[in-house]
């Protein structure tokens, strides 16, 4: 720690902090034009200069990159400094077009603000005009380099944070400007970080051009509804309509957003939004009133329940429901429908990952905070293509890689972008990541690279684990998977020896079989090496959709009640029966797979689907379709006429995430509030629908005055939410476990120990046969950063940057098949199903694999998949 004085204010800061950071802590503002806390200091603008007196000498220096030292006396605002800043500003103005009256950035321009603040007079020297490139052709973003002040923040954020390096300073001297190569239009992540960081109007959002200026917009902050990282969004509205989305630099995500968060929202204004309920009459879906629709649903479900019993009803929820909605939906299904046949897609994907965690550690969730990843010295990614699935978490790995020199170990069947970072890439067939992890652990134990203290004091079951690993030698696994044993050993050594190490798993739809062996292997590895219960360590599981964690916390499963209480547990059940004023069946219900099977064989007759599109997302499309079309009564609650909604009997339109309240729990256990932006709601919030349906089904007591009332009920029912209340959830949310009113949440789990006493290592499963089919091609369903599944397809903006219809293949395979980039191909599965796509040469596809994005309804990729299988063998022909 060092102590210094800034404008008379004494302040103590961490060693290594800059003078600027110290000033911020002291509450003294120093003007900057090229500094951002996310970036490495650059020192281009010289606006931050201060006078520093140390050891009797006074010097001026930039505050942004000079470290604060003990005993320094810093003056930030002397007349001399003001003069010098004024001169810098005049030099910038010299060649800056003074078109402020028509500039989009007017009122939101830091140059303008400083020129005003420093009362810069008429320039005392001639203006200089230079001409630079203007780009209006890129998606979303507009460049006008004539306005650029060369602060370099766009180039740096793109490289340092995004890891994309789409922008560069080109040309030299006074001709230098920011551009892509050969001034081409952008072909990048389209995260818009460059536009949001630009202090002037040189890079800006196209959608604001001619629409409005920042200060005219009315801001609402809410949570992103795409992936599960819980980035906070600021929606800027004009005339009751969102026109701009950004994120505050004070948010947990530090103002960073990915393309979906920043530019994906127009789905909310899609013409395809459903506005009125639909009822199937004479084979056609026709518009109806809410009353009629709810009445029909209540009657039909009631009649089925009466004639065939409550277990002929079933319900599928979604990771998109807020906690409150999921909780009330749970109550509705169990106490009003009277069945435990309740599940959601995360029930087989996300859950099989978190299920591994709970019995071993205590909680079924990520152990640490996302922003801690940047501090790790080793990062192990297990089938986690974060660049595409969770872009903002990928940024953390870039930071760790560059600033902490972290080794990035990628175990994947895709050559992911992060695999090019310094570290190791171990390519495995889909679904075999756990074998690599086990062999790493075997090597670590054999070589004595383990953390003895941690093994002795914090865990149990070590002997059994070591015994169960006996067949997992790096040599055996390397031979089975076609890898190099030395690579496994080197990766194992890097992870074990690193001071801090994180392991990351992500839910992806290529996980059709039970993934719990993988998460167990990951936890074993973290425990044995002592990489848990500390900052920048731990095991992360990233769910697919916004409320992946919350959906499980709220018990959208056949066997768990909210708070992970077991349905089977008599005491828990009766507690919920009292709370919910209704009976809950004593035995667990059917999971999604059985529900869909039940639909096929007639045991399930009525199905209520909320926020999911089973026809496109569940494996084995033909059987799903067959089952759904046999149902006596299918109700779909959605924003759009999805392919499942299209075959439903009743469709109930719901509000978009930007139009409703409630909370989401992110993958770092952070409970954050949504705030509705606009009064214009199309459809109804799910919560309202559940309540009216319950009332019509004779249970008017299922009623809540609002989201906050539901949250207080959740707090009473789910132990890790017990200290949570609507009022307590601030701008940065609350991280569970939050046990009482005093508890400000828990960022790092297991710091002081495990709630279950000692952590329990899980023996590895018996090493089975590895099927390594050679010769034919494997299809790998993949994710692309522009999409997320259900609603990105309704966003014209996202469809424009990333339209469907292509399959990525390696250069070798394409040459072997005589294919050129862009050729039409036909992919035929072993089950005879076929789809037509275009071939795209890609580095991501390893030899022998074909990557096809699964999130396009049109691709019908689940025609090829099946429960429990990970390998999809296909033929590719020229079409």
């Amino acid at each position, binding site marked *: 720690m060092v102590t210094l004085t800034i404008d008379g204010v004494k302040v103590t800061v961490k060693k290594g902090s800059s003078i600027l950071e110290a000033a911020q802590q002291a509450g003294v503002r120093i003007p900057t034009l090229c500094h951002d806390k996310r970036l490495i200091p650059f020192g281009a603008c010289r606006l931050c200069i201060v006078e520093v007196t140390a050891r009797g000498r006074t010097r001026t220096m930039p505050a942004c990159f000079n470290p604060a030292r003990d005993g320094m006396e810093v003056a930030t605002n002397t007349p001399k400094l003001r003069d010098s800043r004024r001169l810098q500003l005049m030099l910038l103005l010299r060649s800056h077009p003074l078109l402020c009256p028509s500039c989009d950035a007017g009122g939101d321009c830091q140059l303008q603000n400083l020129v005003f603040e420093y009362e810069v007079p008429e320039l005392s020297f001639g203006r200089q005009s230079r001409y630079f490139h203007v780009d209006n052709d890129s998606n979303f973003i507009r460049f006008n380099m004539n306005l650029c002040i060369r602060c370099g923040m766009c180039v740096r954020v793109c490289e340092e944070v995004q890891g994309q*390096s*789409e922008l*560069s*300073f080109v040309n030299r001297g006074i001709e230098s400007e920011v551009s892509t*190569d*050969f001034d081409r239009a952008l072909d990048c992540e389209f995260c818009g970080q460059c536009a949001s960081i630009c202090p002037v109007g040189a890079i800006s959002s196209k959608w604001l051009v001619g629409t409005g200026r920042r200060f005219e917009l009315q801001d609402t902050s809410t949570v992103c509804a795409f992936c599960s990282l819980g980035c906070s969004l600021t929606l800027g509205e004009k005339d009751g309509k969102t026109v701009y989305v950004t994120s505050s630099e004070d948010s947990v995500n530090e103002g960073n957003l990915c393309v979906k968060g920043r530019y994906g929202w127009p789905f909310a204004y899609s013409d395809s939004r459903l506005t009125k309920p639909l009822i199937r009459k004479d084979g056609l879906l026709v518009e109806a009133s809410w009353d009629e629709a709810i009445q029909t649903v209540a009657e039909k479900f009631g009649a089925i329940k009466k004639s065939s019993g409550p277990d002929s009803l079933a319900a599928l929820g979604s990771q998109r429901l807020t906690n409150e909605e999921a909780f009330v939906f749970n109550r509705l299904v169990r106490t009003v429908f009277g069945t435990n046949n309740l599940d959601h897609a995360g029930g087989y994907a996300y859950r099989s990952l978190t299920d591994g965690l709970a019995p071993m550690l205590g909680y079924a969730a990520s152990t640490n905070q996302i922003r801690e990843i940047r501090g790790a010295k080793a990062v192990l990614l297990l089938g986690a293509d974060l660049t595409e699935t969770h872009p903002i978490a990928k940024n953390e790995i870039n930071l760790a890689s560059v600033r902490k020199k972290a080794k990035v170990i990628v175990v994947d069947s895709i050559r992911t972008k992060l695999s090019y970072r310094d570290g190791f890439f171990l390519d495995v067939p889909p679904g075999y990541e756990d074998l690599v992890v086990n062999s790493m652990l075997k090597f670590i134990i054999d070589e004595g690279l383990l953390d003895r203290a941690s093994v002795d004091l914090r865990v149990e079951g070590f002997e059994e684990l070591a015994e169960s690993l006996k067949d997992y030698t790096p040599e055996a696994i390397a031979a089975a998977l076609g890898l190099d044993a030395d690579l496994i050993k080197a990766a194992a050594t890097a992870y074990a020896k690193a001071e801090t190490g994180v392991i990351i798993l992500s839910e992806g739809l290529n996980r059709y079989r039970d993934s719990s062996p993988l998460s167990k292997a990951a936890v074993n590895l973290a425990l044995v090496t002592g990489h848990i219960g500390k900052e920048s360590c731990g095991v992360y599981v990233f769910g697919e959709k916004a409320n992946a964690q919350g959906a499980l916390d709220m018990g959208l499963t056949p066997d768990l009640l909210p708070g992970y209480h077991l349905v089977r547990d008599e005491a828990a059940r009766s507690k919920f029966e009292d709370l919910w004023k209704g009976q809950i069946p004593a035995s667990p219900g059917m999971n999604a797979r059985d529900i869909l099977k039940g639909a096929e064989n007639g045991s399930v007759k009525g199905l209520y689907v909320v926020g999911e599109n089973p026809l496109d997302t569940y494996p084995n499309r033909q059987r799903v379709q067959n089952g759904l079309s046999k149902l006596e009564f299918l109700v779909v609650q959605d924003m759009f006429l999805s392919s499942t909604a299209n075959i439903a009997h009743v469709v109930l339109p719901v509000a978009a995430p930007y139009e409703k309240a409630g909370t989401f729990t992110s993958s770092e256990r952070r409970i954050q509030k949504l705030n509705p932006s606009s009064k214009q709601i199309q459809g109804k919030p799910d919560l309202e629908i559940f309540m009216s349906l319950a009332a019509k089904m004779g249970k008017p007591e299922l009623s809540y005055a609002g989201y906050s009332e539901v949250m207080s009920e959740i707090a009473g029912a789910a132990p890790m939410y017990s200290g949570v209340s609507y009022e307590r959830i601030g701008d940065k949310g609350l991280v569970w476990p939050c046990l009482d009113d005093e508890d400000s949440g828990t960022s790092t789990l297991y710091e002081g120990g495990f709630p279950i006493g000692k952590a329990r290592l899980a023996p590895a499963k018996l090493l089975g046969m590895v099927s390594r089919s050679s010769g034919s091609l494997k299809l790998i369903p993949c994710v692309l950063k522009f999409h997320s599944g259900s609603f990105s397809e309704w966003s014209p903006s996202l469809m424009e940057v990333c339209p469907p219809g292509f399959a990525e293949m390696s250069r070798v395979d394409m040459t072997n098949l005589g294919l050129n980039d862009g050729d039409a191909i036909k992919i035929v599965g072993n089950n005879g199903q076929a789809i037509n796509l275009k071939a795209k040469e890609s580095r991501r596809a390893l030899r022998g694999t074909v990557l096809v994005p699964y999130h396009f309804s049109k691709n019908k990729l689940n025609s090829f998949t099946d429960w429990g299988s990970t390998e999809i063998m296909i033929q590719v022909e020229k079409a």
Partner: protein
Amino acid sequence: MQERDALLKKKVEDSAEIIPPEKLALLDPVIEKYQGSSSYLIPALKEAQEMFGYLPMEVQRKLAWGLNIPAPQIYGVVTFYSFFTITPRGRHTIRLCLGTACYVKGAKNMLEIITREVGINVGETSKDDRFTLEAVRCLGACGLAPVMMIGEDTHGNIMPSATLGILEGYQ
């Protein structure tokens, strides 16, 4: 002076030439040699330029893919160092100073002579690939005005009538 300002803005024109794939394959050994270490970008670019004479878009893109360096960064480097060029050039680049001192002391006449006798204007390359002509703003040697650089050689105090004689030395 307006005429001069216009000349100073003229850049060597982009080539419309498309490099055929078999010729691009010449880069494979360069890529092989420098793969895996982005700090060797400059030597790789140097070799590529020796091979093609210049670094057009296809060459840069191929190097970007092969060396796994973002194309904008390669372009940034290429446009930063005057040694690299993205347009085809003659064997010798003439940089004629059109700064004020040189201009009034005869650079204007020199330009006329070059245009007439070599047959190229600013931004052009002679048909025999011998010379490329560029106009530059003050080379910082006003004391020697008029000044012209050919390749790395600086010539000063030139009598306009001696221009062709100097060029003779560069074949």
